[in-house]
């Protein structure tokens, strides 16, 4: 595509942003006295800050770029990733799970697993999580550098270096507090930076009504991203075409979507991923910790307007002009360029700098989230547990500083690996998917069934991972060859795959369903066959039936009570689903 020219004014805006990000880290430096300050913000963060950081850490560059691309390819059905695939799980983690995470005083998610189950379950989770976070931060670094190279003509190496140095500097100085504060700052930058784009884009297609009219033309034309005709509302109705996977551009039916995405994948991510849970653990009280994901759910619910809508506008314009979006090296439309193209098309110099800053902010917050989660899990769950236990706190604080540098260096290495070998990254993400899919079953049983044992949890996780691997090896999405997309086991043994899914997404959803079910059943069976080694006293505060109910905090107003807030959030998500049905 044609490159965007930044003016001096745009660089000024970028400069202001960098100065503030570093300034916050510098300011917080003097408060980092203990390892708890560094890794857990001394458990002193108010609910609204933790909530906005919670959502900002999740909002990586991949989300902004990827959700806009999905908005173009699948239309408003992409909102299922928010209103089905996020909100219910966020309410669940806040109301039902946070009492155990926060109340147990565990410093990380793996540490909870150790308290509730045993060492091996914790080690399995800690190691896989640590490796995964380093790779994710490396991948987002790579994605951003590639994007800036492509659209602004920046030097790839320089982009990697500068972004790594900035994230390193502010985490090194201010630890998790600095990451959280910057995430809040970045949250507002992302929202205020992308809003003018949405406003101008919507205005140019004649408002929401105009967009619906234009997208109905896209839906009935075989010349759309899916390459076949649908009913007129396919791009603007989120549920109406979900009876069969052939009737909508996403290629999924409602059951696979609700169970696979809405239940297994979404609860697995929001309820067990330390990257987000860490923000809630840093909150200053139990009620603040519980409100953290609920407060986060409010902006999360509205993000489709910010990230999916630009994609929908772009596809309407693409259909009108035929060359709005650029083509990639294979000659097919490159949907990942949706946001950059929209920025270039609608924003003049000045506000363009704010838009580019928002893009960078989304990337930095995602990367910093990974790095802070990584350094905590490494220091507490791997280093302190298995390498050097029993050292004074100062020792672990220093380790935190060192591992932050090491983590960033590893991320840089991963970014370059991603640049050279596309397939390696696909494969790694695949493997992490196998490890993560069953996780929620382990937590669900751990928190709500006191009989679940360490052996049960560990072998349940292994079984679930194995089930996801087998499923992948035996099935394929339509039109794909055996290999990284699946079917490799079938190709090796019998020749024919057991099942062919219409699209890759459906394959992922069903893999998650099988993995979760296998883990759930295996954990129950093995728990019943093994002895519970944890005593009732040890399980107090970790399991629902042995934990005293939390009384309402009388100092809070009615709408600040976690349960009330959770119900309001859920009701709002239902209303949004109905409006865009």
């Amino acid at each position, binding site marked *: 595509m044609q490159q965007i020219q930044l003016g001096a*004014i745009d660089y*000024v*805006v970028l400069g*202001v*942003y960098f100065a*503030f990000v570093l*300034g*916050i880290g510098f*300011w*917080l430096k003097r*408060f980092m006295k203990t390892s708890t300050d560094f890794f857990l913000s001394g458990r*002193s963060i*108010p609910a609204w*800050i933790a909530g906005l950081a919670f959502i900002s850490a999740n909002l990586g560059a991949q989300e902004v770029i990827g959700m806009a691309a999905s908005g173009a390819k699948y239309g408003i059905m992409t909102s299922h990733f928010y209103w089905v695939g996020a909100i219910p799980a966020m309410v669940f983690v806040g109301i039902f799970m946070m009492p155990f995470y926060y109340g147990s005083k565990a410093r990380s998610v793996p540490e909870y697993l150790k308290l509730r189950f045993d060492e091996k379950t914790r080690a399995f989770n800690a190691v896989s999580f640590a490796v995964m976070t380093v790779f994710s931060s490396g991948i987002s670094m790579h994605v951003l550098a590639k994007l800036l190279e492509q659209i602004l003509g920046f030097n790839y190496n320089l982009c990697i270096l500068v972004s790594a140095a900035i994230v390193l500097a502010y985490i090194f100085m201010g630890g998790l*507090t600095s990451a959280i*504060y910057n995430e*809040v*700052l970045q949250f*507002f*930058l992302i929202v*205020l930076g992308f*809003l*003018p784009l949405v406003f*101008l884009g919507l*205005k*140019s297609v004649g408002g929401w009504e105009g967009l619906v009219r234009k997208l109905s033309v896209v839906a009935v034309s075989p010349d759309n991203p899916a390459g076949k005709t649908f009913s007129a509302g396919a791009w603007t109705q989120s549920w109406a075409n979900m009876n069969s996977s052939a009737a909508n551009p996403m290629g999924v039916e409602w059951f696979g979507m609700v169970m696979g995405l809405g239940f297994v994948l979404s609860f697995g991510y929001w309820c067990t991923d330390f990257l987000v849970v860490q923000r809630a653990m840093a909150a200053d009280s139990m009620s603040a910790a519980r409100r953290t994901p609920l407060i986060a759910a409010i902006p999360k619910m509205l993000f489709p307007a910010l990230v999916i809508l630009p994609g929908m506008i772009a596809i309407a314009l693409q259909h009108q002009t035929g060359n709005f979006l650029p083509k990639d090296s294979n000659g097919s439309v490159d949907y990942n360029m949706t946001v950059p193209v929209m920025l270039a*098309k*609608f*924003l*003049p*110099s*000045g*506000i363009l*700098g*704010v838009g580019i800053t928002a893009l960078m902010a989304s990337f930095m917050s995602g990367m910093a989230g990974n790095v802070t989660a990584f350094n905590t899990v490494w220091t507490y769950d791997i280093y302190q547990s298995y390498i050097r236990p029993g050292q004074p706190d100062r020792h672990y604080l220093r380790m935190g500083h060192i591992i932050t540098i090491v983590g960033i260096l590893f991320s840089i290495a991963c970014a370059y690996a991603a640049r050279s070998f596309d397939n390696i990254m696909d494969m790694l993400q695949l493997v992490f998917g196998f490890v993560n899919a069953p996780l929620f079953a382990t937590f669900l049983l751990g928190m709500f069934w006191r009989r679940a044992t360490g052996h049960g949890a560990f072998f349940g996780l292994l079984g679930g991972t194995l089930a996801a691997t087998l499923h992948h090896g035996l099935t394929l999405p339509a039109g794909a060859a055996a290999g990284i997309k699946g079917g490799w086991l079938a190709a090796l043994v019998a020749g024919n795959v057991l099942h062919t899914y219409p699209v890759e997404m459906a394959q992922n959803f069903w893999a998650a369903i099988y993995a979760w079910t296998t883990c759930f059943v295996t954990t129950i069976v093995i728990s019943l066959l093994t002895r519970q080694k944890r005593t009732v006293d040890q399980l107090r505060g970790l399991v629902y039936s042995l934990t005293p109910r939390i009384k309402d905090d009388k100092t809070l107003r009615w709408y600040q009570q976690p349960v009330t807030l959770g119900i309001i959030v859920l009701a709002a998500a239902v209303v949004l689903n109905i409006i865009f049905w």
Partner: protein
Amino acid sequence: MKLDIRLPIGLIFILIGAIIAIYGLTSNPEIYKRSLDININLWWGIVMFLFGVFMLLLAWRASRRSA
């Protein structure tokens, strides 16, 4: 709290908002063809500036209450 985060947020938006709005007043109107002939720099600069002021007000109110 050690540092009220609303303080730096307020400051950065006041600064960026003011820069963008002033640029909107002085820049060549030609460049606003892209933004559908709306001087988006001026208007959005003002919005960001006001948001920054609002954040500072919240921070100021909070500091008075705790003092």
